């Protein structure tokens, strides 16, 4: 089963932390884009739908964002 799993998923050995940073960036862009086009704050589901990603992934990615944002807040304060 292990081999089948690896065969099906070529991104297997990628660290979650790395793939999350990409999603985090895309989620932030999508949020800003939707803010403009909808002229209001988008919901989490709208951001997920816009990225064609499961809501779960966006929640976790926005946490990665929180860490990036609070880190930059510390650096730039």
């Amino acid at each position: 089963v292990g081999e089948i799993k690896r065969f099906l998923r070529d991104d297997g050995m990628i660290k979650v932390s790395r793939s999350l940073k990409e999603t985090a960036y895309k989620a932030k862009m999508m949020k800003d884009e939707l803010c403009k086009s909808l002229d209001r704050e988008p919901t989490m589901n709208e951001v997920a739908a816009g990225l064609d990603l499961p809501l779960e992934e966006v929640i976790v990615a926005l946490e990665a964002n929180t860490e990036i944002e609070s880190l930059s807040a510390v650096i730039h304060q």
Partner: protein
Amino acid sequence: MQNSNDMQIEFASNSLNESFARVAVAAFLSQLDPTVDELYDVKMAVSEAVTNSIIHGYDADPNRTIWIRCAYSDRLVTIEVKDEGKGIKNIDEAMQALFTTSEEDERAGLGFTVMQSMMDQVVVESEVGKGTKVTMTKTFY
């Protein structure tokens, strides 16, 4: 990163909470900087165990309680999924591939098989009328 840590979550047996359970476990285990695959495997296994507690343990009653304990020591991860539902009569039989007590579902009977292939070890303790606890372990790379 510290070398051991543990947490517990408790939630209603509503299928709405499956996603919450998966994300909570994944967020906790992300402390180990896992690979995409490792986290995917754990989430699949947790999903199957939680679904079983809801559907079989509690006959889809959304108002009962499910507990998950998740711990790691170095890179050995332990996850317990527990319900106080109706329990399993014959555990060996229940764990066999394709065994199911559901009648509707066509792709039924593979929950324990999925857990076993996603995790290194799956131990089931259960008592009829008392409930079921599934303990799964996996060593992260």
